[in-house]
Each structure stands twice: as C-alpha cells, then as structure tokens.
C-alpha cells in the first residue's frame, strides 16, 4: 500500500467525473453512510468541491460531523485514491458553482440522465490527506 504524501495535482485524471465517486460519512452517533456522487471538482491545491444534488443523509452527516472519505478512480489506469476531506462551506453561486453545473450537465448528457443531475450546491472541502489504495 502506498502511503506517500500525494498532491491533488497528481490525481487530476481521477477528478474528471468519468467514473462515479464513492463517499462515506458518519452521523454524530457513529452510523456510517455510503453512497455515490457524480463529481469531485478541483478547486485549488488544498480544496475540492463535491456536487450536492440529492444525497440527503450525506449532507446531514457532514453538517454535524464534517469528516468525509471519498474514493476516486482514474479512468486511465484504474488507480484508486482515498481522499480524507473536511467540510468547510456550501456555495450556491459563483465561479465554482457555475463551472460544476456545466460539467454536471455534460455528464448528465453523456449518461443520458438529464434532469436528475441538477446541482443544488457546491460543497467545499479541505483535503486532509490523499492515499493511493
């Protein structure tokens, strides 16, 4: 298992939304939750944004316990990366939100799922660690 410290810029291929991302959260009373999301969006070297569409329990969990683990997959070599993330804020307008909305619409078109990929918010997370698994 590779434990070296990694940077977001090294895993950009895994952040394109080609392969859906798995996210796990925990409620304040330690009940795990696991689901899929469409997109992890690169914000800057220390932050990503997750698409908030309709994954309600995930949203409720990170508001009471801000830790989230995401598994992203590179479509080039199928390497898996575990991102440990800390929820910071939710944005419903601005450049990040608008760019994510455009990417999400493109993904929806490719997957023929127009209408269900509506973005409610771009949730901003600080990247605590990245690990290849």
């Amino acid at each position, binding site marked *: 298992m590779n434990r070296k410290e990694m940077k977001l810029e090294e895993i950009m291929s895994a952040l394109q939304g080609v392969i859906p991302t798995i996210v796990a959260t925990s409620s304040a009373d330690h009940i*795990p*939750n696991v689901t*899929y999301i469409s997109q992890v969006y690169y914000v800057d070297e220390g932050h990503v944004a997750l698409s908030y569409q309709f994954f309600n329990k995930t949203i409720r969990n990170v508001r009471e316990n801000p830790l989230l683990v995401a598994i992203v997959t590179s*479509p080039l070599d*199928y*390497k898996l990366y575990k991102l440990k993330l800390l929820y910071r804020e939710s944005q419903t307008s601005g450049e990040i939100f608008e760019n994510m909305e455009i990417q999400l619409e493109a993904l929806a078109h490719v997957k023929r799922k127009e209408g269900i990929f509506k973005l409610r918010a771009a949730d901003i997370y600080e990247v605590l660690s990245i690990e290849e698994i």
Partner: protein
Amino acid sequence: MVVPPGHVDFLRQPLSFWLATAALDNTPEVIKCTGVLFQPETDTFTCFAPLKFCRTGFRHLEENPVMALVGVELYTYEGYQYKGPYISHRECSTGEVAFQLAYMKQLTDILHSFGYSGPGYYKAYVHHPFVAFTFRATQVFDQSPKSGTGGELAKPAT
C-alpha cells in the same frame, strides 16, 4: 424482516457494491465489496472484500460494530443502502472466492460495454486473499438518483 422481498432478485444482479464503517471519533471508511450473498430469512448479508482494503474497517468494527452497504445497478442507477449491526468476519472459502471472481467478471463485462477497460477494473479490485463480513440489516434506504432519495423504506408487513 426489513429488506423488501423484491430485493432478493435485485441483489442477485451484478450490482456495484461498497461497504462503509465508522470509528467512534466518527471517521468513516469505505471498503470495495467484491460480491454479496443475502439471506432473506434473517436479513443477513455476507459481503466479500479483498483483505488489503479492510485494515481500517477492522479497527472501526472492533470499537463500533455497525456496517453500511450500498448496491447500485449500473444501467439504471437504481440503488439501495442497507445498514445494521456487524456480526463477524472470516477468511473466504474456496467456493466464495470462485463466486467473487465470477461476480467481478460479470461486473467488468458490464463496465466494458460502457467503454471502460474491463481488465483494468478487474485488476484494480481483485486482490487475494478475500474476507467475508456478515451483518444484519435493520434499515433500508432508497439510494436511486431522484428527488427524495435517501429516505428509509417502510418495513414490509410481517
């Protein structure tokens, strides 16, 4: 019973399965699941996974014996999440390993039909040895991508 009877057939399909655990400090963990067997009489799931993905999950289960499993159908995105108390884990039998390899072959064939590399996916997730987790579902949630998703399903009448 809490798992709807219709899920018995649903769970026999080559769904994409993932497990999750949580530590008592509320750190979550994800485990790639390489196959599931469901026992409807007891609402019990046996979930298979490569040992290399399970180290953190083992630690979590020692202090907080609760598991979550999501299963999603790849064509329609119909999906459900099952949660409940962890019962045990053990090494997989030879038959269970064969079951997982057949399941992963079916899953990668589907992904290949979407344009993904079947061999690449198989190589990423199939790692010997494998372990089998058992947990009992006490809650079921709709995870299909639609408005209102995430809601708990009503328990079937007994």
